[in-house]
């Protein structure tokens, strides 16, 4: 495995930020995690991976036994890329180290959407990075099936440090499913993931990320998105399994006219889980739009559900919807929707609601013959069902499947 060289200025900035705590979320002691470990062998055929691993990957939408409905596959175990392949022309997928070797220009995208010294986690990724994925849709190419990527954590006390770069060139359409999961049951681990998205003029990216961790894993994704004129970025995030601590606040900047960003998040916090998850959209160009929807359920864990929309250009429009459901136990949901408008002629709004399931609704369904538990399950299922405009039907079905697989645990 080859550690990626970074320019001296990046390294200097990162070193200076190595002790800088994040703006949100519990602080994690990085010194208790190793950033290197045993390497894993490369697999030309990913279906040869262990059955248990494949099953876990399947639960997060990554299909290895039959990848006919995927236009490309990337798998990284701990800090080793173990497979990458393409099934469709016009799509590139490879480890970032390989992409950096292949394309000199890639450095133009390096730390451009995410600020390197945001906090100690971004700094740590710069200083201890071990690959991640590079996915690119060539100009005008349109993927029928999604590209799939899996970041898989197997070693206890390891910090998985990835830096992903995703580029949708002009007029392209790219669908991505990223599944992040772990083989660890009780042991602790850390996932640090920097993802930088570049959605060029007239391009469309849908990014569906499903996380299945364990009650001892801490997760700190750091994501930035730049959307050019008429570009569309659609993010769907699902976290329904226990995790010790997860904090992220992806930021999308609409820099070209009429760019569109949509975020949908489905969050479930089990007892012992602490989630601080937000979505941020900065509307910097005329006619840009955003919609942020989050659904948070706690069965005993704590959730901070953030949202931020900033309007800095004429005729921008944004709506933020944050709904939380406290199902049982002593969980907390703290919804923090924020809007900032910097000029006249912008249209930003939000709605937020946190509460338990209304008894009136349960009884309404019971009056139709459903038992109390059936009625509750129907309402929870409905709550978690976010209809996502613009998502291809196949991906909607995959997302629904991922939610349905986990929602049984809630009932």
């Amino acid at each position, binding site marked *: 495995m080859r550690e990626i060289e970074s320019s001296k200025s990046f390294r200097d900035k990162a070193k200076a930020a190595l002790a800088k705590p994040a703006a949100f979320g519990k602080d994690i002691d990085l010194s208790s995690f190793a950033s290197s470990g045993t390497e894993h062998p490369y697999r030309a055929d990913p279906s040869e991976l262990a059955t248990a691993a494949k099953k876990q990957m399947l639960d997060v939408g990554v299909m290895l036994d039959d990848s006919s409905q995927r236009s490309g596959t990337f798998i990284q175990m701990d800090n080793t890329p173990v497979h990458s392949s393409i099934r469709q022309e016009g799509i590139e997928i490879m480890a970032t180290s390989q992409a950096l070797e292949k394309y000199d220009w890639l450095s133009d995208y390096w730390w451009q959407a995410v600020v390197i010294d945001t906090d100690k986690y971004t700094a740590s990724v710069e200083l201890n990075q071990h690959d991640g994925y590079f996915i690119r849709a060539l100009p005008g190419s349109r993927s029928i099936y999604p590209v799939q990527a899996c970041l898989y954590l197997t070693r206890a006390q390891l910090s998985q440090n990835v830096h992903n770069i995703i580029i949708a060139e002009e007029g392209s359409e790219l669908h991505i499913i990223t599944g992040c999961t772990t083989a660890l049951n009780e042991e602790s681990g850390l996932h640090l993931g920097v993802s930088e998205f570049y959605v060029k003029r007239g391009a469309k990216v849908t990014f569906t990320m499903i996380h299945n961790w364990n009650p001892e894993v801490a997760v700190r994704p750091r994501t930035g998105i730049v959307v050019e004129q008429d570009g569309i970025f659609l993010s769907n995030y699902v976290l329904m399994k226990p995790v010790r601590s997860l904090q992220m606040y992806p930021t999308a900047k609409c820099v070209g006219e009429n760019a569109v960003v949509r975020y949908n998040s489905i969050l479930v916090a089990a007892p012992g889980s602490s989630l601080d998850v937000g979505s941020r959209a900065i509307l910097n160009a005329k006619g840009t739009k955003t919609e942020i929807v989050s659904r948070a359920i706690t069965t005993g864990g704590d959730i901070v559900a953030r949202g931020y929309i900033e309007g800095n250009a004429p005729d921008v429009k944004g709506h933020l919807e944050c709904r939380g459901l406290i199902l049982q136990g002593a969980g907390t949901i703290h919804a923090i929707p924020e809007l900032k408008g910097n000029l006249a002629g912008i249209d930003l709004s939000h709605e937020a609601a946190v509460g338990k399931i209304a008894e009136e609704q349960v009884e*309404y369904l*019971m009056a139709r013959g459903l038992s109390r538990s059936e009625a509750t399950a129907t309402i929870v299922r*409905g709550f978690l069902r976010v209809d996502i405009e613009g998502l291809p039907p196949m991906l909607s079905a995959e997302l629904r499947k991922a939610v349905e697989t986990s929602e049984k645990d809630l009932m």
Partner: protein
Amino acid sequence: MREAVLSIKQLAVGVENKQILHDIDLEIRSGETHVLFGPNGSGKSTLLMAIMGFPRYQISKGNIFFKGRDITMLPLDERARLGIGMSFQRPPVVRGVKTRDMVAACLKGQGNEKNIGRLAEKADLVDFLDRETNYGFSGGEIKRSEMMQLLAQRPELSLLDEPESGVDLVNIALIGELINELLEKNRRIRDRKHAGLIITHTGHILDYVNASTGYVMLDGRIICQGDPHEILATIKEKGYEECAKCVK
């Protein structure tokens, strides 16, 4: 004599320790439609909620029988499964749960696309199936949705709470049609299996749906029973004040 679908004896009902209904006696036989008149706040909805079995409505005295079985202590959902259904005056919005899901739940095992679509066409709600239940619905749409769900559920006893309130004339006609189908008005009386109890404040629904018996409820008591059209004519002419005089 036809079987009594609903039989209520000496029923007293309270909400949050406040007594609302007193000594209610009522009997509806298979195939019959009865109408309950009364001013706002007289206890009409309380009676329907108590028959349906909503836990908030506490029965302190008396009994409710459904087809001869004492259901006084039976939970809400079991009553629904036995064959009692209700259209709500103001049903809650259920975000995330689509109207289609509600109809499917009412159809139980028969909730296929064809059956759901057929019912939605009847209720003129095809475009509403994929909308969240009652979210942003107009008054007429809510009532049609309630009737569509009951048509899916096919209860032997339908409790209809103000099916015409907040509804324009065009919608009342359609709701009347749906009620007539639910209560099998197109069949001969002796062949009807479904019975109904309709609450009406204005009586407009009687222009569209025939009923055999009417009651007037005042201050939580049924004070009058007779021909529904005669009762309505009296109320229209003299108001509920005249009914109050009957009690004194």
